[in-house]
């Protein structure tokens, strides 16, 4: 049995072997910004829009196919988007009894008071104040509006509410006939006994109905609950289906859960259509359950990857790679400007589906508001992103600070002597990778940042890269602007400015797995010194030095071998270590070094001596040899280490 101490050590040692790639994303800078109040928070008129059951003839209704024959096949309009609510938002109480709604709100940590509201559904929850979607703190007060039954329901409210209570609120089962047909598609119904029908588990995909119920529609800058529409004229409104299953001649009473803002067929799974058939005694004989798009009975695909917290461009690429399509709508949310902060209320996922994501373009109210001032404006400070981009494209120089520093992946490359000259930015891709007619700067900015296949005409996203893990560069300040390509923060150029707004630093960020700028392509670019430093435990360091005029990156990792006087390789393996064991940057603050470790064989120093250390560049680009002059010992466990260490002066 392990002790606690042993378990602690085991887990920490195991975790240390998990290589976590650094994300090149910058933390937000603190900046004085007014706190914006979410339009959704409390301004929605509770009596009107927030009413859950809407059998009122004067209320807006979804348009049926008869109204608009193209709407069932056309791309959904963007008048509104269905979202799943986050845990920090007031939930939807649509379709619930007041009791069930109160339980739900109390469970979510709100302090609930109940107020009666004129409505046809006595005891039904008809809304909340603040209304659905409002972002509020747990423990805040929420008023639950309960229907008082004082208004007349226009269509079959009693059996329909009964079924909805049963399906949504866990209420008692309505009265079923001896046999009940459940139609979930165009095929034959599943016929169950009345007893089975009264068991909630019999009903398919309750989660679909629940998901629709808990969705909200974001339209016109506000959150709206999904409506439940009850009517007896199926031609009037539906989820878009015009004919019922062939086994049923009449349509029965139609109950539609749908965001009416979106028209009849807004989003897959965004509309649930219940057709309720009763016999002469009012017992339910058949129910059609149809989520829009035939989601019932069809196996959905794997959900797309989570892209929340990333840039729109990054999200687009990730979603596309997973076989879905993506579109993005601007929303006001509690999130930094420019990042994907919400996903639409999709329930099932089918290959090629068009998924909708909310990109925060305005920072709204949050449960905790003190971070709001940390959000840099989109587009960067004073248009610095645009001016730098224009310069890279051959335009006029932007304002430069007295000293302009170039960084690559957060490593300091040095001061750019004449920033107005494109070649001074150096650090080129290898020339054969540059499109004709472009110099290094344009190549880096336009190609590295924008990525393959993206032309300058596609433009760039600007905005912060949120979850930057590097602290080396900027002491947790953030750049004045970030240019990002489709790789999101994997390909980005960050621009720093001084207090006067002049550019003082530029950082090329790139993903280690992607194209690397400035590869060391020739042996001439590096040289290796003789062992120059003796570290702890008699460790000898042989540094590499940059011989070229600019920093460069080794694509891949070099190998190192010790040789004896006779030129025979000594059998000592090499290991790689350091921050990134796939690439090495040469030049800048870090230099690679071959570490000849002898610390572990102090007691058994072998009389032989290694005569030389030979380092082979990755990709067969050549090799560099230096005198080794180091005692080695052939004990098991001896090895060479190649690692980036602080530059040796």
């Amino acid at each position, binding site marked *: 049995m392990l002790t606690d101490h042993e*378990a602690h050590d*085991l*887990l920490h040692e*195991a975790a240390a072997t*998990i290589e976590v790639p650094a994300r090149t994303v910058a933390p937000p800078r603190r900046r004085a910004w007014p706190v914006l109040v979410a339009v959704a928070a409390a301004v929605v008129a509770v009596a009107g829009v927030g009413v859950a059951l809407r059998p009122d003839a004067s209320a807006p209704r979804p348009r049926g196919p008869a109204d608009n024959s193209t709407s069932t096949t056309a791309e959904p309009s963007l008048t509104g988007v269905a979202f799943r609510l986050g845990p920090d938002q007031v939930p939807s109480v649509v379709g619930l009894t007041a009791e069930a709604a109160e339980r739900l709100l109390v469970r979510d940590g709100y302090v609930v008071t109940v107020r009666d509201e004129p409505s046809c559904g006595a005891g039904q929850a008809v809304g909340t104040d603040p209304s659905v979607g409002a972002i509020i703190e747990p423990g805040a007060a929420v008023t639950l509006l309960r229907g008082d039954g004082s208004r007349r329901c226009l269509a079959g409210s009693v059996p329909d509410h009964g079924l909805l209570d049963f399906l949504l609120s866990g209420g008692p089962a309505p009265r079923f006939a001896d046999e009940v047909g459940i139609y979930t598609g165009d095929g034959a119904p599943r016929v169950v006994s009345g007893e089975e029908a009264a068991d909630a588990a019999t009903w398919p995909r309750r989660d679909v109905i629940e998901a629709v119920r808990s969705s909200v529609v974001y339209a016109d800058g506000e959150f709206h609950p999904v409506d439940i529409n009850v009517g007896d004229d199926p031609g009037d409104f539906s989820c878009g289906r015009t004919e019922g299953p062939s086994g049923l001649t009449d349509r029965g009473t139609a109950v539609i859960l749908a965001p009416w803002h979106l028209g009849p067929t807004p989003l897959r799974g965004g509309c649930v259509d219940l057709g309720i058939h009763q016999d002469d005694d009012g017992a339910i004989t058949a129910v059609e359950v149809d989520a829009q798009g035939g989601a019932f009975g069809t196996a959905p695909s794997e959900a797309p990857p989570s892209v929340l917290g*990333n840039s729109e461009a990054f999200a687009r690429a990730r979603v596309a790679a997973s076989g879905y399509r993506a579109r993005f709508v601007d929303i006001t949310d509690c999130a930094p400007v420019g990042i994907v902060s919400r996903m639409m209320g999709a329930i099932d996922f089918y290959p090629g589906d068009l998924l909708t994501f909310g990109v925060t373009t305005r920072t709204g109210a949050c449960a905790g508001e003190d971070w709001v001032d940390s959000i840099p404006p989109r587009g960067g400070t004073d248009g610095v992103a645009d001016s730098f981009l224009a310069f890279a494209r051959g335009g006029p120089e932007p304002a430069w600070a007295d000293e302009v520093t170039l960084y690559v992946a957060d490593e300091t490359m040095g001061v750019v002597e004449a920033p107005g000259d494109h070649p001074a930015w150096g650090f080129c891709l290898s020339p054969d990778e540059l499109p004709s007619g472009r110099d290094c700067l344009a190549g880096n900015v336009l190609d590295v940042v924008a990525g393959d296949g993206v032309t300058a005409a596609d433009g760039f996203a600007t905005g912060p890269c949120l979850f930057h893990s590097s602290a080396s560069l900027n002491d947790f300040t953030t750049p004045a602007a970030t240019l990002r390509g489709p790789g999101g923060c994997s390909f980005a150029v960050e621009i720093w400015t001084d207090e006067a707004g002049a550019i003082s630093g530029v950082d090329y960020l790139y993903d280690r797995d992607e194209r690397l700028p400035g590869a060391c392509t020739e042996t001439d670019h590096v040289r290796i010194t003789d062992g120059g430093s003796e570290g702890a435990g008699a460790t000898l360091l042989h540094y590499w030095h940059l011989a070229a005029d600019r920093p460069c990156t080794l694509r891949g990792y070099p190998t190192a071998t010790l040789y004896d006087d006779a030129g025979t390789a000594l059998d000592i393996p090499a*290991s790689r270590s350091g921050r990134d064991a796939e690439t090495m940057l040469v030049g800048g603050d870090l230099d690679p070094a071959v570490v000849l470790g002898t610390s572990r064989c102090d007691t058994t120093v072998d009389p032989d001596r290694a005569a030389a250390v030979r380092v082979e560049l990755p990709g067969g680009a050549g090799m560099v040899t230096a005198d080794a002059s180091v005692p080695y010992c052939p004990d098991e466990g001896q090895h060479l280490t190649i690692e980036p260490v602080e530059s040796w002066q």
Partner: protein
Amino acid sequence: MDFSEYVAARRTSLVRSAVLLGCRLPEAEDVVQTTLLKCFRSWARVQQASNPEAYVYTALVNTVRDARQRRWHGEVPTVELPETGAEPDLSRPIAVRRAMAGLSHEHREVLVLRFYADLSEREVCDALGLPPSTVKSRTARAKQALSTLLEAEDAH
């Protein structure tokens, strides 16, 4: 602690925790990203917590659970060996990772929270929504299970 500072300091640990909880690396990064976004939304509350780490780990565990519900991951109880070749003392940590992959979700959760995130027993109770007695017994069983799997690894 400022949110940015927290992310800079702790993101790697969180990703590693997600891996130990059974995620594959790219997914672990997604999970951590989502977790951080959740925490970002209520950072004031996180900071006020007696141990912000416990709050974040609670969110992490829940996010991992959500992700697990959303799809089946086809977990494979093997890991890629780092390309060192000559670090003999790496075999033990790798064996631990393999053993962790063989544990139940519940056992992984208590082990990661208690011994990697170093949360107190009380905090683990809060994070998992379990009474202290359950956390105690589950932790003991998880350690036993890990121990058994490690012995099997050794025998292998």
